[in-house]
């Protein structure tokens, strides 16, 4: 890297370890995390099961039984893994440009799908068209995936359309629904209960179980996303 921000390392139970940069969303920090994530995927630590990036943290799941094979009997697997992780943090990493992809995602903002557009417009004293244009105006970063298979946490949404989570979550949000909560935007990959404010729907499949590898999910951590508007007719014939 070398990571120039303060961080902490702590155990997440007895089989996982977290590297944490603090309780905030920062693009630079997340870039570092995604770089370290891909580096650990390419060259895993001994005994590592998998590595998972989040907004400002990265977690390594490991098998303490396997790690024990590499260490002194009196040492803990946790201590050894944390030392290995420290070493990797100090190792220079390649630029993220080699990894990041730019995806263009069609979204239909018709009122048939954008259930909460009017609510946001009223709340923010702007027009529905303004809400749509503001949502379209930015290039979003996929900070992390979670909640559901293929659910992307993207940001940062313009403050002018920042919205709190719904107090009463919908019991069913359709797959492809594009939502906003706080300064995050995301797309529901599967039918699910959900509390995000829904602004539109994409005809793309975010999650595909026919695929038996990482292509099961359209979006990956570190991707960049641009939304473009399509009409309801274009949506239906997509």
């Amino acid at each position, binding site marked *: 890297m070398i990571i120039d921000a303060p961080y902490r390392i702590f155990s997440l139970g*007895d089989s996982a370890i977290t590297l944490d940069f603090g309780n905030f969303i920062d693009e630079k920090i997340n870039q570092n995390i995604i770089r370290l994530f891909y580096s650990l995927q390419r060259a895993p630590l001994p005994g590592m099961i*998998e590595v998972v990036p989040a907004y400002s943290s990265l977690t390594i799941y490991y098998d303490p039984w396997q790690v024990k094979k590499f260490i002194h009997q009196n040492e803990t697997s946790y201590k050894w893994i944390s030392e290995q992780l420290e070493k990797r943090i100090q190792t220079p990493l390649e630029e993220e440009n080699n990894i990041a992809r730019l995806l263009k995602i069609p979204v239909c903002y018709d009122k048939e799908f954008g259930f909460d557009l009017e609510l946001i417009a009223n709340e923010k004293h702007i027009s529905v068209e303004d809400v749509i244009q503001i949502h379209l105006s930015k290039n979003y970063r996929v900070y992390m995936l979670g*909640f559901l298979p293929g659910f992307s946490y993207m940001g940062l949404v313009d403050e002018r359309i920042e919205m709190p989570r719904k107090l009463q979550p919908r019991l069913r949000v359709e797959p492809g629904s594009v939502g906003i909560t706080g300064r995050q935007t995301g797309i529901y990959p599967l039918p699910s209960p959900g509390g995000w404010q829904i602004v539109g729907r994409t005809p793309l499949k975010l999650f595909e179980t026919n695929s038996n590898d990482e292509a099961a999910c359209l979006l990956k951590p570190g991707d960049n996303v641009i939304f473009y508007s399509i009409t309801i007719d274009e949506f239906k014939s997509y």
Partner: protein
Amino acid sequence: MSLKVIKAGILDTIQDMGRYKYQYLGINPGGVMDRFAASIVNILVGNSMNEAVLEMHFPAAAFLIEQPTIIAIGGADFFSTINGEPVPLWHPILINKNSVLQFEQLRSGARCYLAVKNGLQADKWLGSYSTHLKANTGGYKGRALRKDDAINFKRQSNYSRFFSEKDSIVLPWQADIKWTGDQNDKIFIIAGNEWKMLDNASQYHFLNQPFTVSPVSDKMGYRMRGANLTTNNGFELISSAVSFGTIQLLPDGQLIILMADHQTAGGYPRIAHVITAHLPVLAQSRAGAKINFSMTDIETAEKLLMLQQQHLLQLQNACTFRLEEFLNQ
């Protein structure tokens, strides 16, 4: 066909040890709730410990076994019978063709495991046979078993020479499920990163009062009922990773323990984590069970996990030897 569902259960799915390497895409590992029991039933029939098994809840399905095979049942005690005759837990059982396997009574525990020699033919998705109910994939058609479903065994074996008149033969050795470090009635935990967010009184309550598994508990998580816990400076966290066994503090002051089907990330304070070696006990706790937490450290957590793993390996050596000896006689 080899194993046919003649009566559906409430939630019977094919599971293995879970689907790893895809949490970065939001795909949760899932898998069996009680890895210790699932490992042992596999060991008893001569499978590798992570072979796919049936994980059953009560009331469980009834099965028609259409081809002779060796099975083992363990975990919760559902009072299993073969053609009406009771059969014990934790034994390998030679079961003849056209036998009916049933689970008649909930006696103890929450999840019962059935292993079949050489394993079950199931759908593998992203490296795992575990049924992912939300994504509707893996295991048997991505869903819980229903009446008339039929699952093939991976391999057919000819055991006819062992059968005379009896329908099934319970082989005489039983797996020892007691392992060193098992003799306590407390669930060991280690502190989570947000442990210090709890005020002193709440830390005390957490460690000194029992918590009850509430009825709103499932494979994703156990909601616990107990003292209302409060924080010094409550604040919302941005999403980050959680784990099987993570104990989160919900905004209403109650606790949830994340179980096998937990989501990959969460934003609630992680006040503690159940040690891996004690997850099987928790996995067999039903609604109403009282849980006492006891704080330990990572050294102890690792030591207990090593002891448990060593116990399984010793069991595997002994059982493999006994089974081969029996089959070659």
